[in-house]
Structure formats: structure tokens, C-alpha cells
């Protein structure tokens, strides 16, 4: 009898514990992200002055569950690091008619430290704003005389993850004035324009309703500081333009394609909304 009673109590406690764990499975927005116990990441900071609709900017990491968050806290647990490793392999592999590899000109991938924080940026020679993908393909076609990679092809995703990873922990700082300003304005215009049958703009979800649910989805601020991110549902890296496409498709609109001037402009504008957040590439999201 005594045994039965104590079992019941133990069971009751276990259930109470389960409920408590259920309510705290969503992380506190003040949780601190430290990767590998050494790289501290800024996941929450004051919004840049040019973002009128937000006071505080928060990384998408702060919106995810504890389980998803913990995947990003250790490189061994982060499934995207496999792709970063594959990126190192293609960094060192010669390709194209010139017989050159990335390493022949750029030596270590570490030479790319800080680059991710500045992209997309104005390219004087091209007379337009360029993303990392465009710089990589320019290197491939002009210097290596190789075939350009597709925007969302695996080698391109691996390479952008590798190069972005070198800047992990550094705050995003894209330039929005000077020659890039017109493109930035175009991106801002898009951000606040309602698209599709559902007539939703980026801002409707990611500025007006972040932290709320859209059906089962916990809306984030749509920050891009972790891209390319590893999405658990796709079990692969996803480029920012691919994500934009998914969002616009969900408004039931015809989308732009990856690499289009519209998405380059939007990428610059969205990146500028995250100025001050640390680069998290490759982040883990659901």
C-alpha cells in the first residue's frame, strides 16, 4: 500500500515536470548563444536607426525551441557543418580551364573573415549590388574559367556556408548609403509591399507580428544573419533567396527567381535590418 502511494506521488511529480518542461520549451528571448563554448553571438540588440518599425532586433535563434537552439551551440551537433566541410574540399579543388582552385588565390578560407558582414555590397566595376553568390560565380567564370554554379546548387550552398562561417560572431554591417542606396530603397519598397492573393507584405508577418503564431509557425523577425541556414525540414542548407521565394509563394504570388535583381535588393534591405546582430552562418532553423 505504501509502495502504491509513493508510486502515485512519483508519477504525479513526473507529470508536473513534463508540463513545466512543455511551457519552457520555447526559449527565453534573453537566452545567450555561445557556440562551442567560446564564440559569443549577439542575438538581441537595438534596432538600427533606419528600421522604423522595430525597437529591438532579434536573431531567429531566439524564436526556436530549446532542442533546435542546442543544435547550433556545438559544431559537432550542427548538421550544417558537414556541408561546411564539403565546402573546404571544393575550396581546395582545382576546377575549370585555368586549373585553379579558390585556395590558389585566396589561400585559407580564413582570408574571407569579415566578408559576410558586408554583403550584399556595391560592386563598382559591375555598377550594381552584388551578393556572395555573384562574387563566387565571377571568380569561377573569370579567374577559374569554370562553369558558374547554380544559385541553390549544393556546391554553391556549401561555399557560401564556408565563407560565411569565417565571419561567425562578427556583427552584420552592410552599407545602405552611397551608391547602394537606390538598391536599398528598392528593397525597402518591396519589404512593405503586399504581395499575392493573401496580400501580405514581409512587414505584416516579420515586423507587425513576430513572436506570434501563423497557424503552427512561430514567426521570427525574418533576419538573415544566419544564412545560408540548415533547415531541419529540408535536411539541407537553404539560401536567403530560396527562403524569400518560399515566403512570397506562401502569399500565393508569382515569385521572383533566385538571383533576380529584385531579390538582390531585398537581400540588401533585409540584411540591413539585422545590422548589429552577429553572423551565425550556418544557423539551424526549423
Amino acid at each position, binding site marked *: 500500500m505504501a509502495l502504491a502511494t509513493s508510486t502515485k506521488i512519483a508519477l504525479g511529480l513526473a507529470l508536473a515536470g513534463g508540463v513545466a518542461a512543455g511551457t519552457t520549451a520555447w526559449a527565453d528571448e534573453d537566452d545567450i548563444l555561445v557556440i562551442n563554448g567560446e564564440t559569443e553571438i549577439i542575438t538581441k540588440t537595438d534596432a538600427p536607426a533606419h528600421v522604423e518599425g522595430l525597437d529591438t532586433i532579434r536573431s531567429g535563434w531566439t524564436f526556436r525551441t530549446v532542442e533546435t537552439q542546442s543544435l547550433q551551440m556545438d559544431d*559537432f*551537433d550542427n*548538421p550544417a557543418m*558537414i556541408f561546411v*566541410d*564539403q565546402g573546404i574540399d571544393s575550396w581546395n579543388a582545382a576546377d575549370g580551364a585555368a586549373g585553379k582552385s579558390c585556395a590558389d588565390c585566396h589561400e585559407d578560407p580564413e582570408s574571407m573573415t569579415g566578408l559576410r558582414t558586408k554583403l550584399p555590397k556595391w560592386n563598382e566595376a559591375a555598377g550594381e549590388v552584388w551578393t556572395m553568390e555573384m562574387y563566387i560565380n565571377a571568380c569561377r567564370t573569370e579567374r577559374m574559367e569554370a562553369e558558374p554554379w547554380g544559385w541553390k546548387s549544393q556546391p554553391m550552398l556549401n561555399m557560401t556556408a564556408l565563407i560565411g562561417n569565417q565571419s561567425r560572431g562578427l556583427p552584420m554591417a552592410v552599407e545602405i548609403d552611397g551608391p547602394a542606396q537606390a538598391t536599398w530603397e528598392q528593397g525597402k519598397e518591396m519589404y512593405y509591399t503586399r504581395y499575392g492573393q493573401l496580400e501580405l507584405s514581409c512587414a505584416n508577418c516579420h515586423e507587425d507580428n513576430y513572436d506570434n503564431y501563423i497557424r503552427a509557425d512561430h514567426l521570427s523577425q525574418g533576419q538573415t544573419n544566419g544564412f545560408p541556414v540548415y533547415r531541419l525540414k529540408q*535536411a539541407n542548407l537553404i539560401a536567403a533567396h530560396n527562403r524569400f521565394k518560399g515566403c512570397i509563394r506562401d502569399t500565393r504570388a508569382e515569385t521572383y527567381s533566385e538571383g533576380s535583381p529584385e531579390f538582390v535588393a531585398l537581400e540588401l534591405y533585409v540584411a540591413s535590418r539585422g545590422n548589429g546582430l552577429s553572423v551565425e552562418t550556418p544557423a539551424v532553423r526549423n
Partner: protein
Amino acid sequence: MASGVKPRVKVPKTASAGDTITIKTLISHPMESGQRKDSDGNLVPRSIINRFTCDFNGENVIDVTLEPSISTNPYLQFEAVVPEAGEFKFTWYDDDGSVYEEAKPITV
């Protein structure tokens, strides 16, 4: 023949004798289940890691049989007691006959 297979292991570099340590292993592998069909309707042949073992100084720590429908890039985490300094040896057995090996020393 699976390509791009690369084993990874995380073992603490040092421990006290008798300590229980956590070992994490990951191998990049497509783990093709043998259930899927290609665009012509033909079965894609099964190609998985079917067995994983870990030995410490010649003594078996864990011996795992893996089945189809285990996801891509199988990740295994387990605990081991370290009685003395030595070396953990990890072996993955592929359906195609390939054997992938990795070893990590530990000091006490």
C-alpha cells in the same frame, strides 16, 4: 558505392580513470533505404551503413546493427567508462563492403 563518406568523432582528450564519458559519432552517408524508386520506376538499390562498432584497447564498447530508414548522416551518441589510458577505435561497415575507420586516443 556511396560517395563523400566521411566519419567524424568527438571524444574528450582526457578523463579520470573510471570516468563515464560521452562519445559522439557522425558519418556523412546518404543511407539510401532501398525502398525508393527513381524517375523511371526502378528501385534505387539499398546503400546504407549496416553496422557500427566501437572498441577500447581491443575490448568492445558498443556494436550496433543499423537498418534501412535510419536517416542520412547517422549520428550516434553513447557513453563509455574509461578504466585506463588508451585508444577508442570506431568502425563503420558499408553495404558496398567499404569499411571506414577512425581512432581517438584518450589520456587518464
